[in-house]
């Protein structure tokens, strides 16, 4: 059937993480090279790009081709792989002079805010200078080469994929260091005179020759793994070892001796008096002293005028679709019909949750997809919300003229509704009851219809809808925001159509005035403001996720976070709600709830109410209160306690969102295929057997590394929350030390939350919405 030769040559596999790293390096290099090639073409000709690409390509071939697949079986193949990583890839990469192009290709804010201060920090500079000093780089290269060929270390790399990767990384890294003084990538300057590179290379060749000679002539097999390995091509292990030594010796020595010869010839050749480029009338290159500062300024190491953030509306076709009212209405209508179908199946279909649309789509898929959308883009669910459809019908049929009562114009009601929802979800096992789920949907439609039918504006969205509040809060860390493109345009605007609206287009119903809007909070992505703006000055712009969590600015319609305890309570409900919602599904907590039911003889809703009261209100309330008091005392600030709590509560948003993502994405993957047989069942119930009979033994996208993802996302969330808390502490603290003391209690709270979240994801979790549950 199979041809072994074909099988050998088809033994390619793409290691995801290193390949992504190589691809990103190439993208950043290419982006920077294009800029620099335009600005200083003499420094960055096309061959540099080709050399850099070839260098990365060499690494890819070494780790993804059959060389890697057979390295564990054949020593000579392993030797070729190492030669590529040490001797070929590094000089090619350095020939691309990658330093400036990559820095230039990185996002400007990242260069300015993150990498810039580190690159100009003296200790880092000192480390960099040491690393590329020929004495260090030559020694490191030789040490790496020799150490990894000592049998115990070589065997370690052969037996452990992790150590094998460490070996490869050390080869590439020391290779880059070794070739640095030889290639001297621009704009670095040589430490030693050029002629010293001849002995530098000769010494390197000496150690290489000694090692290669030892491998070639040693009369026993050095590495036991190759002695035990199956014989593939008839040669003995000793012959293969000799061949590996020869490969190391001959091509290795060529790589050292050819550059040494070239340097020697150049050193001995007479120096030209006039540069050929100057004879040909080409503008001489700028001096290094004037050129480099200019370039550093251009790549963002020094402040410069920003070019403006990325705007989703500018993407061809996709931008147009997103802006289109027809698209939005169409999506809302589709979602509305889907909601009707779910409710109908919930009432009339089988009451086994994984066999019913109401049991799988709202609880597993919709929630999972929504958090992914929030994480990668923004509040796109509100954009296509099916309830908007009903709200608009309500406005046409009912008077819609009263103002929402002033005491209710806060988030207290929404926070209460979210707590009620979390209680009902667990207490009445909503996820396990299609019938109750259908009633929740109907109730929701009715509430949207009546509230917006009697009250003006988007009252339901702004003050009532718990789903909307969930999206508003989580979208604070989304990477896109509906935002003005240019403040100058708004300054000259006299009509304020974005909030007031025009005859044919209403303005923002949530009372967000675009020039003063600071985050995604309360924004439904309806784009009414974008359509109303006569200057086309509203876009869907890329922002730094979470940047609004720590600034204390005045916001349109919201005021300052510090003055909004109701917002803080809403946020805390969702943050700690994430924890208790996930905890309710793990075996230890579910067991505890069950035991409590038996011991106290109380119905499940009562036990769940107590559980939520403790886990979501009492304990978090005390912890937040304690953190607030402690931070005020330690930081010696006179700001009122509610203001401190309100400000710091916002910084917990990333952690809460991280927990929601980890939890809901877990369910999305474990129940990925559940709608397929349910849709087949619905079609059969409707006498439409075109989709075939439902097969309930379905596959799933669940994979063991799902837990890796959860751990990573929770750690990213922890870092996000800590960073936000630090920024708030810096705003309050008069000195760095004071800020540290202010920050300490909140950082401990974040850490505690993180540890509980990690404990939860390590527990066996109920596979809700699947037949396994």
């Amino acid at each position, binding site marked *: 059937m199979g041809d072994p030769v074909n*099988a050998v040559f088809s033994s390619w596999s793409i290691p995801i993480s290193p390949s992504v790293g190589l691809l990103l390096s190439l993208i950043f290099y290419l982006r920077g090279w294009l800029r620099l090639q335009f600005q200083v073409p003499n420094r960055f000709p096309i061959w540099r790009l080709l050399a850099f690409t070839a260098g990365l390509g060499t690494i890819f071939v070494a780790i993804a081709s059959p060389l890697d697949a057979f390295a564990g079986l054949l020593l000579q193949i392993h030797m070729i792989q190492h030669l590529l990583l040490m001797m070929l890839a590094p000089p090619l990469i350095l020939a691309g002079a990658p330093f400036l192009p990559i820095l230039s290709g990185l996002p400007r804010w990242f260069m300015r805010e993150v990498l810039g201060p580190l690159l100009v920090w003296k200790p880092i500079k000192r480390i960099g200078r040491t690393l590329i000093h020929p004495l260090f780089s030559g020694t490191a290269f030789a040490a790496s080469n020799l150490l990894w060929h000592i049998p115990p270390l070589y065997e370690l790399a052969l037996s452990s994929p992790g150590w094998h990767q460490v070996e490869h990384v050390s080869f590439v890294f020391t290779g880059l260091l070794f070739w640095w003084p030889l290639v001297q990538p621009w704009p670095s300057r040589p430490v030693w005179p050029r002629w010293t590179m001849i002995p530098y290379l000769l010494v390197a060749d000496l150690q290489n020759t000694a090692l290669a000679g030892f491998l070639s002539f040693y009369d026993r097999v050095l590495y036991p793994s190759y002695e035990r390995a199956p014989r593939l091509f008839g040669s003995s292990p000793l012959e293969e070892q000799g061949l590996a030594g020869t490969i190391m010796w001959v091509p290795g020595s060529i790589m050292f001796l050819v550059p040494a010869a070239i340097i020697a010839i150049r050193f001995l050749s007479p120096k030209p008096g006039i540069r050929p480029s100057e004879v040909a009338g080409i503008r001489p290159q700028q001096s290094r002293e004037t050129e480099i500062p200019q370039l550093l300024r251009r790549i963002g190491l020094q402040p410069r005028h920003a070019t403006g953030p990325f705007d989703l509306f500018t993407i061809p076709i996709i931008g147009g679709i997103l802006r289109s009212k027809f698209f939005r209405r169409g999506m809302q209508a589709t979602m509305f019909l889907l909601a009707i179908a779910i409710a109908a199946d919930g009432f009339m279909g089988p009451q086994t949750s994984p066999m019913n649309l109401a049991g799988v789509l709202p609880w597993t898929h919709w929630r999972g997809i929504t958090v992914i959308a929030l994480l990668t883009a923004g509040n796109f669910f509100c954009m296509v919300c099916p309830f908007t459809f009903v709200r608009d019908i309500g406005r046409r049929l009912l008077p819609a003229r009263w103002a929402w009562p002033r005491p209710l114009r806060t988030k207290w009601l929404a926070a209460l509704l979210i707590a009620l929802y979390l209680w009902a979800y667990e207490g009445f096992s909503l996820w396990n009851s299609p019938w109750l789920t259908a009633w929740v949907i109907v109730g929701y439609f009715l509430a949207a219809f009546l509230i917006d039918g009697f009250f003006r504006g988007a009252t339901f969205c702004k003050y009532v809808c718990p789903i909307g509040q969930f999206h508003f809060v989580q979208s604070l860390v989304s990477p896109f925001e509906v935002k003005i493109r240019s403040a100058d345009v708004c300054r000259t605007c006299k009509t304020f159509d974005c909030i007031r609206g025009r005859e044919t287009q209403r303005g923002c119903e949530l009372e967000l005035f675009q020039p003063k809007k600071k985050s995604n909070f309360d924004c439904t992505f309806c784009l009414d403001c974008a359509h109303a703006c006569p200057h086309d000055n509203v876009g869907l712009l890329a922002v730094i996720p979470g940047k609004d969590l720590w600034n204390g600015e005045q916001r349109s319609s919201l005021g300052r976070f510090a003055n909004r305890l109701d917002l803080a309570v809403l946020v805390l409900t969702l943050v700690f709600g994430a924890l208790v919602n996930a905890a309710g599904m793990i075996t230890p907590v579910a067991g505890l709830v069950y035991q409590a039911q038996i011991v106290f003889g109380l119905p499940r809703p009562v036990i769940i109410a107590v559980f939520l009261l403790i886990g979501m209100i009492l304990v978090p309330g005390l912890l937040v209160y304690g953190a607030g008091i402690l931070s005020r005392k330690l930081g010696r600030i006179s700001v009122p306690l509610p203001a401190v709590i309100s400000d710091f509560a916002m910084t917990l948003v990333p952690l809460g969102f991280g927990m929601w993502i980890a939890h809901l994405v877990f369910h999305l993957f474990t129940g990925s295929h559940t709608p397929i047989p349910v849709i087949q069942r619905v079609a059969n119930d409707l006498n439409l057997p075109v989709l075939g009979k439902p097969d309930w033994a379905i596959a799933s996208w669940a994979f063991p590394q799902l837990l890796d993802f959860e*751990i990573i996302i929770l750690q990213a969330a922890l870092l996000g929350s800590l960073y936000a808390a630090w920024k708030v502490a810096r705003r309050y603290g008069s000195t760095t030390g004071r800020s540290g003391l202010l920050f300490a209690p909140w950082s401990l709270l974040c850490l505690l939350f993180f540890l509980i979240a990690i404990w939860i994801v390590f527990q066996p979790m109920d596979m809700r919405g699947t037949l396994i549950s």
Partner: protein
Amino acid sequence: MTTMRATIILCCALLTVARMAWADGGAIQFQGDTGAFRATLFTQPPILHAGLIDVTLLLQDRSNLNPLLDAKVTFDLTPQESNDVQQTQWMPPACAMNKTVDPTDIPAKLGHGENRLLYGNVVQIPASGHWKLKVIVHRGAETAEIETLLNVAPAPLPPLAYWHLFLIAPAGILGFVLHQIAREQRAKRINPAFDTPP
């Protein structure tokens, strides 16, 4: 610009959904002749713990050592009497979805790993102890069986099994602290009276 962002997002997405690439080979558990075949059986990781392991087989013609790629290979894993199989080891929560706990009659596939000469599959060992691994090979009219004993250690404690992932937060915090020091030193160099919030 757009392409670059899209590619970065795609790369990040790939990175997050990247499955662990099963390594080929690993420790040799058996090597020898059986019937008309020479078989070499590998397991990865080399020191076996309860949980998921990678089992691969290189099948060669006994006479000329040519790799054989047209056989049907299955793995059977049975616990030895001394094992306490009731004490199932901890598994990542999602594992139960698509990995069978009954490790018998597991088909070994060509192209399972990067080395296309090897037959292999991922096998779940539910508990520690001694396990008998039987490999059954069918090729045309020929059939052969190999048996070897695996010594399986208990699964490491969950947090220990994932220790490398828990380095992200400390590394991030360390990077941030260094960044802040660098930033403040730079600011102090420019303005010696600097100690105000940004």
